[in-house]
Structures are given as structure tokens and as C-alpha cells.
């Protein structure tokens, strides 16, 4: 059974774990960020970071430098550093956007972060030592609508983004002040800042989430038209799309070099594999429904339920979904392991729950399932 933690009735807008996963920063649909510490099987609130004027839309926790970056609908981003008195001190980052920020991601080396926004642009922010502040440079062309999601390539330079103009793009976010010139990759060799390396059409829907594979050779994203797309740069940028027969996904991540976990409006994480140009659905990863049906209801209880509540079926399935999450899953994150070999992943959703799924126990719960 996956570990299920409830944070109340408000949706979890976004979450981010610290390096050893003993703490989580999350926002419950308001302008505050809550930091919870894990102790004795429960999460307890230790800090509240209140600086944003409007809803917090994205949080990312840099594992090595232990800095938290948050962005919100108030068009601002703050970088939080832990002080010696254990308080988190915010530093405002001027993004120069005139619409809400939608998500934020630290780069792999944690010397930059990218903020996507409704202002049809992405702000790449880095720290300038001499003036002691964060500077933002903007990527605009040729984005034509809100950018919804971001993911960094492991080389710290390339950035993938998905947008509501139905396209997934790969840009170069090379900042010469903070890093060396990158060597050529399968996505191209010339990487000046803001250069569009690749652009793909996702079908008919908004791109909700995008994810580079661990080595950066493959890119996967999900669209609101219930599709999952994968591009293999090592294979001539071959684009594969699968149109699923379930509700759209809101989040996707690679869990091994060939497997993807996606979750969304069906409130259930699903496993897909990608090999040689084919995306194959493997399995739903939530077997709560099977366990619910297993209980037997006596005939007397059955008729009583029918009489008093007009319940024609198993009473449990009348009021709750047959999945751990009771509402849309909005974010997936790697909890333990890496994108190449994930051992645990976490999901958070509109039902206010944060659930940690263990790959090993999923493999044993579903006969014959191998996540490899």
C-alpha cells in the first residue's frame, strides 16, 4: 500500500522535497509555503514562508545548496536561504513578467533557475555576485501562449518547455557568466542563449508536463488531448505519439531509461514504456479498487443500504473513488532514486494528499510487473 499523507481539504498546488526527503515544502492553494518535517510516520509543520502576495504556483528545492525557489501568481519569484537561526530568508527576484508565473525549476547544478509564465516567456535567473542580486534573462521567441511546464536537461544548459500553444520546445538557456560553453548534444551543437533547438507539436491539447530522460536523450510530455508524446533525439528526433483512452494526464516523469509514469485526471498513476519508437501502456499502478471489491457485504446489510440510502452497489464505491487519490493528481516527483532508477515516487493532488509510491511493492502487488 502506498504511504498516504493528508494535508487537509485544500488542494496541494505544488510540492518539493529536500535532499534527504525528511522535509517537504508545499503550498495548499494559497500564498504561503509550508515546510513540514517528517517524524514518527507523520509530517509536522515547522515553518511557514509567507511572502507571496498571491497563490504560489511553483516550488523547487535545490538538493545540494539547500535553497528553495518559489514562484507565484503575483508575478514574483523568491529564493529562500536557511539562516543560522534556522529561519528561511527570502530574496526577491525581479522577473520582469507582466503575467503570473506558472512553474519554477532549479537547474541541475543549481546555479540558475527557470520560471515559466503566462507572459508568453521563460525567465532564466542567475545570481550576479558583484551586485548581489538575481538577474533574469528572458526567452520569448517564438512562444505564442502561456508556458505551463519546464524541465532541465542534465547538461545544465538545455531547457524543455511545454505551452498552451500546443507545442513542446527545447531551448538553450546558456548563461556565459555562470558556466562554460556546453559541448554538442543530440539536440544540436550551437547553443546561444534563447536559441530554439527543437519544436514539436503535441497534437491538440495544452502541454501539461514535460520531462527529459535521465541522460537527456529523450523527451516526454503529456497533452490535454489525452496524449503522451516521446521524442528520441538519439534517433533523429523521432516523434512518437500515443492517444490514450483515459482522461488527460497532468504530470509525467521518467522512472527508468525506458519507463514513464504519468498521472492526471484519472487520479491514478499509470506506467508506460518506450522502446524503439513505440509507447506502450503497461498498467495502472493503483490497485485500491481490486482490494475494495474483495470485501463481502451481507444480504441484510445490502437491503438495509438499498432501503435507507438507495445504494445499489458496494457502499464504499458510492462515495469514494477506487484509487488512493480522491481527486486529480497534479504533480509527480521522484522521491527516491533518480530518473534513471527510481525506487519511490510521490504524487500530490487536488484532494490535498501527498502519496509516496514504492516501486518494489508495486512490482510485487501487480503480478508480473517489472518497472525497468
Amino acid at each position: 500500500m502506498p504511504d498516504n499523507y493528508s494535508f487537509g481539504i485544500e488542494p496541494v498546488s505544488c510540492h518539493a522535497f529536500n535532499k534527504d526527503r525528511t522535509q517537504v515544502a508545499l503550498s495548499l492553494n494559497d500564498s504561503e509555503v509550508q515546510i513540514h518535517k517528517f517524524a514518527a510516520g507523520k509530517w509536522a509543520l515547522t515553518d511557514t514562508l509567507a511572502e507571496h502576495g498571491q497563490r504560489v504556483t511553483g516550488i523547487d528545492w535545490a538538493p545540494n545548496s539547500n535553497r528553495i525557489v518559489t514562484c507565484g501568481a503575483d508575478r514574483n519569484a523568491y529564493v529562500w536561504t536557511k539562516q543560522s537561526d534556522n529561519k528561511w530568508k527570502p530574496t526577491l527576484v525581479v522577473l520582469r513578467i507582466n503575467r503570473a508565473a506558472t512553474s519554477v525549476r532549479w537547474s541541475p547544478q543549481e546555479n540558475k533557475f527557470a520560471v515559466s509564465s503566462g507572459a508568453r516567456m521563460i525567465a532564466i535567473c542567475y545570481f550576479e555576485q558583484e551586485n548581489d542580486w538575481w538577474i533574469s534573462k528572458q526567452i520569448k521567441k517564438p512562444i505564442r501562449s502561456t508556458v505551463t511546464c519546464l524541465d532541465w536537461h542534465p547538461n545544465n544548459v538545455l531547457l524543455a518547455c511545454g505551452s498552451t500553444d500546443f507545442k513542446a520546445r527545447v531551448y538553450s538557456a546558456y548563461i556565459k557568466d555562470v558556466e562554460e560553453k556546453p559541448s554538442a548534444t543530440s539536440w544540436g551543437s550551437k547553443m546561444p542563449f534563447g536559441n530554439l533547438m527543437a519544436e514539436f507539436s503535441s497534437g491538440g491539447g495544452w502541454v501539461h508536463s514535460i520531462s527529459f530522460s535521465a541522460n537527456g536523450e529523450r523527451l516526454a510530455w503529456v497533452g490535454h488531448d489525452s496524449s503522451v508524446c516521446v521524442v528520441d533525439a538519439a534517433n533523429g528526433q523521432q516523434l512518437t505519439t500515443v492517444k490514450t483512452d483515459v482522461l488527460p494526464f497532468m504530470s509525467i516523469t521518467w522512472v527508468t531509461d525506458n519507463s514513464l509514469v504519468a498521472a492526471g485526471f484519472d487520479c491514478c498513476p499509470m506506467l508506460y514504456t518506450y522502446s524503439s519508437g513505440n509507447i506502450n501502456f503497461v498498467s495502472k499502478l493503483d490497485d485500491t479498487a481490486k482490494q475494495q471489491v474483495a470485501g463481502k457485504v451481507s444480504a441484510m446489510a445490502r437491503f438495509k443500504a438499498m432501503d435507507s440510502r438507495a445504494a445499489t452497489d458496494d457502499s464504499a464505491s458510492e462515495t469514494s473513488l477506487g484509487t488512493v487519490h480522491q481527486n486529480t493528481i497534479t504533480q509527480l516527483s521522484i522521491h527516491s532514486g533518480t530518473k534513471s532508477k527510481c525506487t519511490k515516487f510521490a504524487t500530490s493532488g487536488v484532494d490535498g494528499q501527498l502519496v509516496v509510491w514504492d516501486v518494489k511493492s508495486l512490482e510485487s502487488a501487480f503480478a508480473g510487473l517489472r518497472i525497468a
Partner: protein
Amino acid sequence: MSKNVSSDRFRKVDVDEYDENKFVDEEEGGENQQGPDEGEVDSLIRQGNVMGALQAVLKNPPMNTKNQALKDRAEGLVLKVLSSFKSGDIEKAVQSLDKNGVDLLMKYIYKGFEQPTENSSAVLLQWHEKALSAGGVGSIVRVLTARKTV
């Protein structure tokens, strides 16, 4: 009450058209899309080959064209084919379609729901049930999110 301006024509101006950031879909050449071949489909129906008629009517969907008459004609043709099936044969017909075919059929079904005629909704509902079990809710989501529709 007296009017304080001489002309109020400005109130009817669609300001969104002048927004330079307005999102415009990409144009994909739809000028040569004719829609399904009426003659071919009619003859197949007359011969009693309803399966063949279904395959024929799902060819060349008028997706990219702005010609409304063309789209209406295609929809009418599809409705004719769908109505000529016996209830028991619908399931087999849907099974014979590929994924894109099921998505396209779903688009035509919802288009048909928009303008109900005498008996069309009943027939369309039967087809909807079978198409749903083949395409899942995903096919309905694609009807709702499609930028270009039949």
C-alpha cells in the same frame, strides 16, 4: 436621455481582433479537401455493403476547410451511413476501425448531436455507446480539445 457622442459604431468593434498577441492557429492547407465521396458512399449503401460505406465515408474528413457547406454535407452523409446499419452490426463495424477512425467517428457523432433531426439522436446514441467502449473517454476528450473539427 441625450447621447453625448454622435456615433456609437465603435461599440461594435471586435477589439480582440486587433490584439497583436492574439493566438492564431496555424493554417494547414485545406483547400483541396473534398470530404467523403458522395457517389461512392451512396452506391455502397445501395449495394447493402454498409461496412464498406462506413470505411468510405470516414475518408477525407473536411477538417481543415472553412467551407461550412462542405462540412454539413459530410455530416449528412455520415448520418446516412450510420442510420443504415442494423443495431446488431454496429459493434462489429466499430471494431473494424483503427484508433484514428474511432476518434473521427466520435467527432462526427458529436457533430450530429449538435443538430438533432427526427431519429438521429437515437441512432447516434447507439453508435456513441459502441465507440466509447472502443475509444474510451480519451476519444471524447479529443473531440472537445480538437482545434480543427469536422
